Structures are given as structure tokens and as C-alpha cells.
């Protein structure tokens, strides 16, 4: 049988074996928040969790990343490229929605003539061991976006929590190789597989949020100047939490940092957000997105209109982070519902 079993008390063994070859990233509790961090010992790993607060994009697209370093002297500059991109990484316990976000990120960084080697190379050297969501949160809506709490397509290896053990299923070649290396895994029985299937159905049925995305892109396109944007942005305070902690947001700022006393420096990128008013501010003082209205609109359109147009994918994975963490509870689900209502009105007009 393809499927294997991993006992819960064998996590340490798994860690010990894989941490030799990989940088082992796993959900770890830090100050009450789950985050994906390089685990230094197997005890840190926290697998009984909903989802991490900071999305695992952080592993490949960190909050701060060096683009290149340089040394400076009077008349010369020497540029040092990054050499650490070949590090083999393993993200253990990633949720299917976040794994799907990697597909979006890959699409984005690979798009067009210019390819972001820093991200893509890291992605190439990363293996994803995902974990099915037995109990999705009430704010989750991945099923509305063709996702599924047990979606395996975007993972290399899929784990399903069966209570005292995990069902291990390799999805890609990369995953198969990795599982083969773990020769001590026991065979799964048919009952185990069936239980996993039951859990999958249970999880799917437990979803409370169902949104209709089928017409969102089509509705958004002609409604750029619709008054609904004023309504949506009314209470937004422009903090950018939604985009900082969004698994699919990729915007960054580029900054030069110089250590003048040691004649060296680095050009770095840090996360940025389209919700900040400095984001699009021209040097001349002109700002194309001068108020919350335009900025909120840009975020929604980017995810639900520009993404579909450019990559044929919706730029949202339904993880619900922005819903939970928005300080003013400007709920994305409500926004989508409002957008869907725009069309209803139009249809009424036509029929009337």
C-alpha cells in the first residue's frame, strides 16, 4: 500500500532523521502565537493547531531579506551575491491553504520576463509536508475557492491526523523519495485510509463560511468607480495587518542599509503593504492612491480581479487570517457578499 503510518511519538525520530538533511521548519509556539520557524528540537513542534498567525510564506519570503551585499570604498564598489539559496528546506505541518498560497507566489514571482531567482530557487529547494485540517475555523473558506482542508495537490507529502497517529501519503516524486528514506514507517491499513477519508468529509461538512466567488472578478471589472468602495473602506484604519499576514501578499519595499563605519552595506527588501499611504506616493507629492478608498479597492481588486486576469487564479486561499486579525473587523467575507450583491442589483434592473 502507498500510504504509511507515522505514530505521534515518532515525530522526534522523524525530526532527527530529516533535520540532518533539511532545515526543518515547523509550527512553533512563540509568545502565544504559532509561527513557522526553524525547529531546533522536536519538542518545540506544535502540531495541535489551527493555523499559524504569520503565514509560512515567511520561510521563503521573510519579513526582511537581503537582495545582495556590497562593500564600498572611496571609488569602488564590490557586489556580493547571495550564496545561501541552495539550502534545503522542509516545511512540516503546513496547511493545504498555505501550500496553495505557494502556488500563487510561484506564479507571481515567475511571471513575465523577469523571474525572481531568490524566491524561486528557495521554492525549488523546499519540500512541503502538509497536514490536513480536521477542524477548520469558522472563518475559513478555502472550500469556496476550490480548495479543500485535505487538498494534497500542492504538497509533497500529506499527513492526516488520525488521533494517535498520522497517515502519510506521498504526493509528488520529491515526496515519494522522502518517504522512502523513512523506511521505518509502518504500512497503513485500509481502515486507516478509510478513516482519513471520513475525516476529510467531516471537515468539509464542518465549514460554516460559504462564499460565491464565481462572479466576483466579472463584477469587479466594470465597478471600479462604484460607491461600494466608499462603504467598504469607511472604517478601515489603513493598518495593513490584512496584507502583512496574508499568505499571498508579496509587495515589498527596497532599502539600502549602509554600515558607514565599516564600508559595507546591503540592499534589502522588507514587507510592505498597499494599505500604507507612502506606498504609492510619488516624489513630486502626487499620490495615485491617496485615500483609504483607493487603497482598500486596490487590495480587493488585486486579489479578486487582477490575479484572475493575469494568472488565471484567484489571489486568495481562504485561510481567514485577514478576517480574524483585522483590528476593525472589516470582514473580507462581508466585503465579498457586498460585491456579489452589486450584480444582483444590476440583474434586477435588467429584468425590470
Amino acid at each position: 500500500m502507498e500510504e504509511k503510518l507515522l505514530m505521534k511519538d515518532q515525530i522526534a525520530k522523524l525530526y532527527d532523521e530529516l533535520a540532518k538533511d533539511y532545515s526543518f521548519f515547523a509550527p512553533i509556539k512563540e509568545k502565544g502565537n504559532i509561527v513557522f520557524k526553524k525547529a531546533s528540537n522536536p519538542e518545540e513542534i506544535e502540531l495541535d493547531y489551527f493555523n499559524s498567525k504569520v503565514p509560512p510564506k515567511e520561510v521563503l519570503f521573510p519579513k526582511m531579506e537581503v537582495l545582495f551585499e556590497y562593500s564600498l570604498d572611496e571609488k569602488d564598489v564590490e557586489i556580493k551575491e547571495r550564496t545561501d539559496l541552495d539550502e534545503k528546506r522542509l516545511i512540516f505541518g503546513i496547511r493545504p491553504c498555505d501550500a496553495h498560497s505557494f502556488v500563487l507566489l510561484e506564479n507571481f514571482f515567475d511571471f513575465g520576463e523577469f523571474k525572481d531567482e531568490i524566491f524561486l530557487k528557495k521554492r525549488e529547494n523546499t519540500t512541503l509536508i502538509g497536514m490536513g485540517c480536521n477542524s477548520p475555523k469558522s472563518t475559513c473558506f478555502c472550500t469556496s475557492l476550490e480548495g479543500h482542508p485535505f487538498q494534497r495537490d500542492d504538497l509533497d507529502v500529506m499527513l492526516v491526523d488520525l488521533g494517535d497517529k498520522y497517515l502519510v501519503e506521498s504526493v509528488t516524486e520529491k515526496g515519494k523519495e522522502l518517504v522512502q528514506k523513512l523506511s521505518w514507517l509502518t504500512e497503513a491499513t485500509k481502515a486507516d485510509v478509510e478513516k482519513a477519508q471520513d475525516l476529510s468529509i467531516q471537515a468539509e461538512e464542518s465549514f460554516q463560511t460559504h462564499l460565491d466567488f464565481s462572479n466576483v472578478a466579472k463584477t469587479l471589472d466594470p465597478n471600479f468607480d462604484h460607491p461600494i468602495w466608499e462603504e467598504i473602506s469607511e472604517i478601515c484604519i489603513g493598518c495593513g495587518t490584512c496584507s502583512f499576514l496574508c499568505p499571498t501578499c508579496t509587495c515589498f519595499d527596497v532599502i539600502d542599509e549602509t554600515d558607514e563605519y565599516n564600508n559595507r552595506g546591503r540592499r534589502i527588501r522588507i514587507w510592505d503593504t498597499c494599505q500604507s499611504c507612502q506606498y504609492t506616493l510619488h516624489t513630486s507629492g502626487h499620490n495615485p492612491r491617496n485615500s483609504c478608498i483607493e487603497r482598500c479597492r486596490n487590495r480587493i481588486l488585486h486579489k479578486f480581479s487582477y490575479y484572475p486576469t493575469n494568472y488565471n487564479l484567484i489571489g486568495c486561499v481562504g485561510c481567514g487570517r485577514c478576517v480574524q486579525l483585522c483590528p476593525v473587523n472589516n470582514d473580507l467575507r462581508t466585503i465579498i457578499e457586498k460585491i456579489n450583491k452589486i450584480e444582483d442589483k444590476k440583474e434586477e434592473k435588467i429584468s425590470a
Partner: protein
Amino acid sequence: MNETVVKAEQEKKVDEEWEPKIIAFLCNWCSYAGADLAGVSRIQYPPSIRVVRVPCSGRVNPYFIIRSLTDGWDGVLVSGCHPGDCHYISGNLVARRRFSILNELLEFFGIESDRVNFMWASAAEGERFAVLIRKVTEKVRKLGPNTQFQKKW
């Protein structure tokens, strides 16, 4: 004695020669002239300070002080005219309020507030200037090199 103190003691012995580097923002009208007077009068004081002349102690933005620390200066000194003597009437009084709050906050954030020092010195107080520079240098020397707050690369 706890471990860190012991370690600091050891380091000090190894680096007996270590001379702190202190950045000094001196107001143009009093303290800078005071420093000048100390020099002209040949009063000895440690060569630890590097002077930045500013128009008034009120010109010293707390950014200057904090940035100096992150850039790795071991100490910061701001000196202006005595209260009431400000060339711009109240610049030093405004500065004093700022410094009082900065001083308390630095301590509160666990940044060795002895690294950041404020003083008044008039143009006639060459002697006082030298004495206080000695005092600042000793204070900072006791703390050792500034590594805690310096930006890590």
C-alpha cells in the same frame, strides 16, 4: 557578583587601553565656546569626545542621540547653555523637557542611560567643561563598549 559582571570585569582587564568614543553635541553659543576655552586654557581632558557643533541644544533631536547609539558610539553627550542663558531664549528649556523624557524612557527600555548624558556649560566654564568630560568618559568607560544597542549585521 553575577556572571555578566564578572565577564565585564575580565573584558576590561583584557582591554585596559580601551578608550570610549563619545559623540558630543555642543551648542554653538555656550558649550562649544566653553570647550574652546578649555582648549585655549590648556586644561586637560580625555580625548574621548568628537564634537558636533549645533546652533542650540534645542536643535538636538532625540533621533540624533538614538541613531548615535545604533551606529555604535559608546556614549552621547549633549551640552547647552545654562537655563535662562539660551541665545534663543528658550531652546535649552525645550530641550530639557525632551531629555528628561528620553532619559527616563531609555532607562525604562533597559538601555544603559549612563551612555546618554546632558549637561550645561557656559562659554566661561572651561574648567567645568573639562571636569564634566572627564566624568562622562569615566561613566561610559565603566559601561564598556556599546554592543547591546548597536545594530547587528
